[in-house]
């Protein structure tokens, strides 16, 4: 099966990258297989669960709902860019405030949904300096987590605000 290949270029977590890809190649697969970004986790593949959430040109998107060719020319940020997205890292631990809060509040168990949650939460907090609880819940409703029961995730995000 000879599929045409398309030349694309993008920046992934700060590193420029160019490749020839099939037009139907999903961005999520491209990032995992060709861009060294295993933190992009695919859990549902149809845009509901949020595990594969990344930032493309400043906007949080589901990597499983985009084609790699659609990200041609884009700046892509995955979990590896969390320090950039949050703008700060704690010395010593190397963790961002959100990562530290997730750890302190036991807001992750199996960890599969965690990178996507952290990426979109970083974007959410950058856009909302003092969100209400309702806004936090509305934000988190875009993510499925089967282990934690969410309570500790909510607590972790609220703790970052204090």
């Amino acid at each position, binding site marked *: *099966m000879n599929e045409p290949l398309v030349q694309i270029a993008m920046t992934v977590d700060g590193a420029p990258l160019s490749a020839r890809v*099939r037009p*139907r*190649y999903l961005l999520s697969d491209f990032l*995992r*297989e060709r861009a060294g*970004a*295993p*933190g*992009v*986790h*695919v*859990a*549902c*593949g*149809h845009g*509901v*669960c949020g*595990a594969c959430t990344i930032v493309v040109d400043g906007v949080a998107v589901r990597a499983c709902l985009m084609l790699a060719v659609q990200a041609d020319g884009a700046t892509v940020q*995955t*979990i*590896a860019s*969390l320090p950039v997205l949050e703008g700060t890292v704690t010395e010593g631990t190397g*963790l961002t405030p959100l*990562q530290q809060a*997730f*750890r*302190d509040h*036991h807001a*992750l*168990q*199996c*960890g*599969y*949904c*965690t*990178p996507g949650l*952290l990426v979109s939460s970083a974007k959410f907090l950058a856009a909302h300096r003092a969100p209400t609880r309702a806004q*936090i*819940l*509305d934000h*988190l*409703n875009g*993510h*499925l*987590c*089967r*282990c*934690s*029961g*969410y*309570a*500790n*995730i*909510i607590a972790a995000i609220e703790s970052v605000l204090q």
Partner: protein
Amino acid sequence: MMASRNFGQRTRRREDGPLLTGRGVYLADLIRPDMAAMRVIRSTEAHARITGIDFSAVANEPDCIGVLSAADLPQGIGLLPAADLVEGSAPAHHSVLARGVVRYVGEPVAVVLATDPYVAEDLAERMAIHYDTLPVVMDVDAGCRAAAPLLYPQFGSNIVHQTRQLVGDPDRAFVDAAITIDETFRFQRVSANSMETRGAIAALEPGSGRYLLHSSTQIPQILRKELARITGIGLESLRVIAPQVGGGFGAKEAIYPEEVLVLLALRRFGRATYWIEDRQEAFIASTHGREESIQLRAAVGADGVITAVEADCLSDIGAAYSFLSNTPGAAVASVRGPYRIPNFRSRARSVVTNKTPLNVYRGAGYPQATLAMERIMDLAAAAVGLDRAEIRRRNLLPPEVFPVDRGVSYPGCGAVIFDSGNFPALLESTLDAVGYDGFPLRRAQAAAEIPLGMGLSFVVEMTGGGGGEPARIRLLPDGRLQLLSGIVPIGQGSETTLAQILADHLGVALETIEVLTGDTDDSPDAPGTFASRGATMGGNAACRAGDVFIRQARQLTAELHRARLEDIIWKEGVLIDRTRPDEPLTLGNLLRQAAASGIEPLRALDAKGRYDDDAVSWSSACHAAVVAVDRATGIIRVVDYAVTHDCGRVANPLLVDGQIIGGAVQGLGQCLFEVNRYDEAGRPLSTGYMDYVLPTAATVPRFILRHIETPSPLNPLGMKGAGEAGCSGALAAIANAIADAVGSQVNVPNGSGPFTPDCVHSILRGAHQEETPA
């Protein structure tokens, strides 16, 4: 046990570092570009004869590495194991690939291997399977009828399993009862929905040439033995590793066709092969949970004391056994919960239908049994005019009677004997936590259009077991210790908990212990992670290995110092020769001294221990839920959720609370949202998250968690399991709260819902009609 420096602390998890930074290594992270991608061609029919399999369109495609159907399987390869068949069970085993007949939509019929997954999917679409459809059996009632189509004509019936139990004289108790309550409770089919789907990779191990299978499984050690048996590969030639597992909940506690097929494909085509389940597949190819009905009859005295129950449990196990299908056994063995109920009779049957096979799912039979018994408690309270807490008080087993032999057995696990507990204390604690006494006032102040209700439930569940647990401790070259455990990390934080337990046992710093898990080379005889057994079994095994390690370290020291063994003592990770107490020896120094003396210390210090004493302990919990029912929208919100839990001594409250909350929200999901639906032709209607609704953050109640510790006398650490209690009590507490909110004990559908808005509206209409007869 030495001082408790770590045991009982809210120690944060050592697992979190890589998981927070996207560097956790899950199954899909192990795929290499040169591996073949396997795609499974699944039955599109619920019940049919296969009349033809045509690979001709793809067999010569250059990107096609190979195809396999049942006819291509080596002689003798075919059936998957079921662990809980009892005497008299009909062996309705699942095939690796369907042979002649398919029995559910999703059943594997063939596989195709290609150079990449996109192409494999293309090729799969061009492989033609021809079917002659057969009549379907889509529910247990139809399946039990005399004229029902048979899934396995050779068995003569769709009922493939039956067990009965009897305690005391229930007939006499029913004759003497003031009131008899008789209700049937139905439980819908749900999916476990671990966020990481299943997957398996078969490759040859570099160097040894052994077969190396990675699988996202809870039971790598059992999987290895079963794969060796099924494929004929020698056990010593097969290594299985469970990497970081992205959630399990029971659906990864089975032996699946795809795990066999990647291995067979590797042998047949000589190429490392992987398979990753997609979400749509997960809904039809990963085991389902829960579907059954329980008819419960209770003999109730005028004083509210229940003198007998009779349970008849009918389980819809789908098209074949999975690894552990017989949850009705668990349901009936435990249906009396914490209540005395001296007389008991039960029957449990499993029926095959044209649906995905059923397996254990977090809590196995306990959520169902608990709901049935706890609904009966509320109905009995209403019938005799007692407060709902008071009727429970009158029936609870008192703390002084432990251990309690319940006179029944749990299939495969022997007699049901509650080892420890304090049920009245759990009840009073939870009533206090949820504000039971103040609730009537709170209810009166709630808006009339959004009535509040409160429900109670009580869980007593078997934890641990599964066979003995091994552990191994090695000394690392830098003087730190390495614990090798058979407990698989599925999110519960075992590495942290086991390190806490071992650090205290040895008296060493937490940081000096490294924990490795999930590799059959390290722990070939471990059972795996299930039945809330990880911390209790893994922890006690680590202590046993720790004792062996201390003895080995003392022996080595005595040898090096030409001292008597009894003069060498172990104190907090340091070896002291009593004749030279001012020259304590660290493990690092011991290593160096041994090396200088020509002894291979890493071989001398390799301690294996095993915990296989009385392995089953019984955890207990009292739950209370407060719900608000919006009469206009039909939406139910769980407002407050209180649990007092007794899992014996709590090793890490942070992680135990995480288990309880996560489990309770899974139960909430089943109660309010989740259901795997089929149409009448057996086509699955719930195959993605647009039509299978999971709980989200906005549905989460306020949690109030408490612990009462009655240590288990059966293991030195006094622990009992904690992984499933949250889920097991939630269905009952929420269903009871809904019944309470709508003010009608009789019109709530007798089961776990899901209580969707349309369901709530029909309940409200029913209640209204009852209040105002036409």
